[in-house]
């Protein structure tokens, strides 16, 4: 591989929602700071926003305060959140919304020019082109360089201070060593750890982008960054087959969850995000499946609006309605739980950060779905965190020089990449090992197969098997640079799987049904587990750290960070 060195003030890894907004923020407030965005795809349509989104799910509507949003998220997560992170995010939700509108996002307004709200926290939009809007704004910035099709694989860290990162061009095959004064990791969450709903031809018809493979978590874990609450997995309740979001049906036209007998069951299990999934699982186990969102009886005008709304975010669902010839008014929409994901923007798993979104590695910031402790971020929360991290990173670099990454350090990572390109063809392909990993997680770490449940023995087996797959993945062979990316993606996922298993094992209680349902400890244990479960890789071993909850009104600072 050809090897090149790049230098910048701030490196942003991942040009998604948070990453793009981070770049916009720096350009506006610190126009002299040089920013480099490395994006594995193309910022125009990469990440969660590719197909569009349905609504802005996080907004402080009139008469409400940011603290109300904090209270809501805390309740939904049964207490395991960081109030300080939620509050600093919530305070920016409305500002970033107005900015998005200025950039060109269409937001529904009433005759008085006020945003029309959906429930207590949502705004109605046309979100189909939300990503091109952000990308156009970023591409126009003079001091921001965007490198598309560059996949970042590792950080460079010395004495717990960030120095930059390594990666390669998936088209060019050029290996990059990137020196930076500060780094913002914004690579999103992790999909593809578990066997998906439709593992055959449509294996990638999943809710979370299959291209967000947990790289950010894995790089952090490898470099000794502390992670939090990975055990709070996210399982989405989605339209069957198309895995399309259900919020438009539930909140938009008020469709209730019903079982096959037509009974509304949501009230029986509770209304938190995890309880809604759990209720659906239980109704199926007890023989009252399948479950539906009750849309029968809505008006033809509502049908028409739904067809359009879905084209603006999850087109498969509209196509399904059209192909079947049955509109939602004529047939309830069947729902199912997805495979589990790690998504710090919905639940709380991710980097352990301070209110500046600085991780436990000095100069490394995390924003969006990769960042932990702050669930229910959604689009606007990801933008808000992009802003917070960007401002903090820009202040951090003032007076600092670009750190040096030595040639011998580059050689280590370059030779790893070259090993996959040159070695002999092993018995297994990356695809076979990926399938094996998903099967292990499905069977032993609470996948769809076991109704998301697990016990300690199963987790121990899962860990053994994932370790074995890690060993096998050492010898994989890539025929192209794209395949080289596939190998790195698999290895990232395996690293995330191991940490996830350790977290699931460590929380010896069941606080959230389905999200982390341990059959050996079926009850909630406030005495021992009203705390954060954190982890850190120390000398190759995952060390679990239990941390006290950051109380209401308190602010957490990294006081015990070593550097």
């Amino acid at each position, binding site marked *: 591989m050809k090897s090149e060195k790049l230098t910048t003030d701030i490196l942003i890894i991942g040009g998604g929602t948070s990453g793009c907004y981070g770049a916009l923020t720096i350009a506006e407030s610190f126009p002299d700071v040089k920013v480099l965005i490395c994006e*594995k*795809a*193309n910022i*125009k*349509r*990469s*990440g969660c926003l*590719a*197909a569009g989104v*349905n*609504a802005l799910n996080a907004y402080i509507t009139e008469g409400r305060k940011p603290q109300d949003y904090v209270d809501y998220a805390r309740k939904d997560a049964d207490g395991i959140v960081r109030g300080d992170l939620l509050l600093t995010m919530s305070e920016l939700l409305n500002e970033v919304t107005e900015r998005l509108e200025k950039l060109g996002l*269409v*937001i*529904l307004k009433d005759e008085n020019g006020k945003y*029309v709200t*959906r429930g207590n926290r949502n705004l*109605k*939009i*046309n*979100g*189909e*082109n939300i990503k091109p809007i952000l990308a156009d704004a970023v591409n126009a910035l003079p001091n921001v360089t965007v490198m*598309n*099709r560059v996949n970042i694989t590792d950080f460079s860290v010395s004495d717990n201070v960030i120095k930059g990162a390594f990666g390669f061009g*998936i*088209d060019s095959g050029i290996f990059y060593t990137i020196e930076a004064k500060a780094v913002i990791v914004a690579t999103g969450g992790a999909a593809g750890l578990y066997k998906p709903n*439709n593992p*055959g*031809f*449509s*294996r*990638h*018809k*999943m809710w979370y*982008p*299959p*291209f967000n493979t947990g790289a950010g978590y894995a790089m952090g874990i490898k470099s000794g960054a502390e992670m939090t609450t990975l055990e709070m997995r996210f399982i989405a309740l989605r339209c069957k*087959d*198309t895995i399309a979001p259900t919020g*438009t049906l539930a*909140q*938009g*036209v008020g469709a209730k969850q019903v079982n096959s007998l037509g009974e509304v069951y949501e009230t029986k299990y509770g209304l938190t995000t995890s309880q809604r999934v759990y209720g659906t699982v239980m109704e199926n186990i007890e023989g009252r499946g399948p479950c539906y969102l009750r849309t029968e009886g809505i008006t033809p005008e*509502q049908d028409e*609006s*739904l*067809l*359009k*709304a879905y*084209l*603006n975010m999850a*087109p*498969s669902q*509209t*196509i*399904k309605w*059209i*192909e*079947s010839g049955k509109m939602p008014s004529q047939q309830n929409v069947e729902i199912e739980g997805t495979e589990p994901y790690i998504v710090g923007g919905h639940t709380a798993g991710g980097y352990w950060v301070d209110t500046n979104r600085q991780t436990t590695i000095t100069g490394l910031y995390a924003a969006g779905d990769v960042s932990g402790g702050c669930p229910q971020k959604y689009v606007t929360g990801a933008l808000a965190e992009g802003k917070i991290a960007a401002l903090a990173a820009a202040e951090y670099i003032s007076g600092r020089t670009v750190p040096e990454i030595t040639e011998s350090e580059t050689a280590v990572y370059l030779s790893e990449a070259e090993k996959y390109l040159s070695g002999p063809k092993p018995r297994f392909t990356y695809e076979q090992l990926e399938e094996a990993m998903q099967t292990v997680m499905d069977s032993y770490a609470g996948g769809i197969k076991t109704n998301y449940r697990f016990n300690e023995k199963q987790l121990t087996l899962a860990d053994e098997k994932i370790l074995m797959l890690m060993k096998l993945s050492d010898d994989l062979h890539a025929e192209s640079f*794209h395949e080289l990316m596939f190998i790195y993606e698999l290895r990232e996922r395996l690293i995330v799987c191991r940490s996830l298993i350790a977290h699931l094992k460590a929380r010896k209680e069941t606080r959230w049904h389905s999200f982390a349902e341990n059959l050996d400890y079926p009850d909630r244990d406030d005495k021992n587990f009203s705390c954060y479960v954190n982890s850190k890789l120390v000398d190759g071993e995952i060390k679990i750290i239990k941390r006290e909850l950051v109380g209401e009104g308190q602010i957490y600072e990294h006081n015990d960070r070593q550097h």
Partner: protein
Amino acid sequence: MSIMIDSIKCVGCGKCAAVCPGSLIRIEEKKAVIKYPKDCWGCTSCIKECPVHAVKFYLGADIGGQGSLVHTEESGDILRWLIEHPDGRVTEIDINRKESNKY
């Protein structure tokens, strides 16, 4: 679910390949090819880019697809979705990009 590319229509402009969030489309001998059809997420970014409507999207049979082919056409603020059924019927849905969702 995946996409199909009509290689006769394709003019090799590379726009679909550029935007795919999984980089799944490549230009080979001046024509776009979907290299990893099973890795398609179904985001429809590629079909919205194609100037000659050579890229079409379909639902796999494993998720209940019935063989329709979908593409979009753009004029001004209107994004028109065309769903061509196997029997030749075409369903058209127009979306005004300046209008918000009702729900």
